[in-house]
């Protein structure tokens, strides 16, 4: 059977990372949907201050990507993943214990920011390890697999989080912390280090990262991804508000829409990643941007639950195309000794895109009163990025951008 053949032969560490990703994803999804609710409803903080706290946390996360990339290249992937995830578990437990007593907003903001920072430190090491242990032609599928793991966590997490919230908000953080410890132990016990041995070309310290910022085609690629993520971020910021205020859906129904899209990822991500690996990655990125655009533009024309679900499914297909393809291209553009840093710099742009999305969307909603026009305007980001990705094709060699020649490029 074709699927069976394509599913086989991955390094066992891929499945260990998949397991850790699922557990870690579930832990984070226990907490994330309820953080804003806790701050607003329990601490009676205004929504603008809640937004500010999340913005500070997202900023810390963006910095975490850079730091994580640097350390992953200099000291190894495994050590960084284990230390960051175990420390994050401790911070989760600390937040749980802290909110059980008298809460000071600045201390809580600091703890949440440290939590996001540690979460982002983990990412470049994780992504660089995939590039280390998977042959170039199959990386796209493995990045897709890790997305499946994360989505599995998100299918189960918010439901369990909701039950825990009904007992005590502290329990959400305690359980998230325990899941971090479990994921960290799995990585510690079952994963071997994968970092390539440093060579004479290895540049240590911040010089390495600054050199990446001088790589014009890579920064152009990251800038196009930034546009995509500002658009994609509307999925979790303006879309829920639109669904509630304009379409009259309640929180449960909105949660169901996201649940259905997560199921779509679990079912279709792997075959889709397998299919798109035949094409040039920049073309895949352009196609993914246009699919995103279609989904977002469609939202403006409906108020019906099932049609909104359909629109979100189209958006999710765009994400399923873009996300692993982007990671794959970052891995191809980097060398063995700079993978972590490249992943970190890309993560910086991605974090900035996701975290600025609510603000950009909010300003656009205020400027464009008409909902249909608003979603059309959101789609323009996708059209612009698609044009950019097509232009990127000229900047990249076929060794980096072409599917079949990656092996040759990696051997050279």
């Amino acid at each position, binding site marked *: 059977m074709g699927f069976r053949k394509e599913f086989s032969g*991955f390094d066992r560490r891929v499945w260990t990372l998949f397991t850790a990703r699922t557990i870690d994803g579930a832990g984070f999804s226990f907490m994330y949907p309820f953080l804003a609710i806790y701050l607003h409803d329990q601490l009676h903080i205004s929504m603008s201050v809640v937004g500010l706290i999340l913005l500070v946390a997202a900023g810390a996360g963006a910095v975490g990507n850079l730091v994580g990339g640097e350390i992953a290249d200099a000291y190894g992937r495994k050590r960084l993943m284990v230390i960051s995830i175990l420390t994050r578990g401790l911070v989760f437990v600390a937040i749980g214990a802290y909110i059980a007593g008298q809460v000071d907003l600045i201390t809580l903001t600091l703890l949440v920011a440290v939590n996001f920072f540690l979460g982002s430190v983990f990412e470049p090491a994780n992504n660089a390890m995939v590039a280390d242990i998977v042959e170039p032609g199959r990386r796209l599928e493995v990045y897709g697999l890790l997305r499946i793991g994360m989505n*599995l966590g998100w299918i189960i997490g918010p439901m369990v989080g909701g039950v825990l919230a009904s007992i005590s908000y502290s329990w959400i953080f305690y359980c998230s912390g325990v899941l971090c410890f479990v994921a960290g132990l799995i990585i510690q016990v079952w994963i071997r280090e994968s970092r*390539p041995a440093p060579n004479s070309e290895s540049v240590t310290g911040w010089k390495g990262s600054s050199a990446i910022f001088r790589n014009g085609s890579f920064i152009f690629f990251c800038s196009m991804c930034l546009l995509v993520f500002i658009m994609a971020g509307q999925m979790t910021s303006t879309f829920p508000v639109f669904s509630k205020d304009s379409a009259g859906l309640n929180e449960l129904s909105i949660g169901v829409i996201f649940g259905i899209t997560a199921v779509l990822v679990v079912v279709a991500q792997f075959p889709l990643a397998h299919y798109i690996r035949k094409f040039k990655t920049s073309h895949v990125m352009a196609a993914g941007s246009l699919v995103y655009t279609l989904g977002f533009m469609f939202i403006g024309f409906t108020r019906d639950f099932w049609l909104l679900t359909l629109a979100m499914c189209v958006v999710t297909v765009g994400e399923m195309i873009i996300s692993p393809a982007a990671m794959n291209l970052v891995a191809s553009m980097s060398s063995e000794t700079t993978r972590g840093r490249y992943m970190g710099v890309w993560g910086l742009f991605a974090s900035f895109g996701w975290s600025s999305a609510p603000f950009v969307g909010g300003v656009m909603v205020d400027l464009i009163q008409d909902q249909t026009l608003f979603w059309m305007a959101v789609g323009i980001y996708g059209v612009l990025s698609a044009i950019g990705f097509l232009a990127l094709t000229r900047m990249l060699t076929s060794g980096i951008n072409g599917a079949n020649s990656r092996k040759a490029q990696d051997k050279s």
Partner: protein
Amino acid sequence: MDSSGTNHIELWAGIAIFGVIAGIGYLIIGWKMSTEINHVEGGRHGI
């Protein structure tokens, strides 16, 4: 229940059950078909 009069709690439950089964299924199949040897690097770069 939302404005369309639909209660989606059953869908939620179905999604969660699917998630658990799919997760376990992926792991079992993937683990069985994986390999102990790092066939890409062949230990060439491992430290």
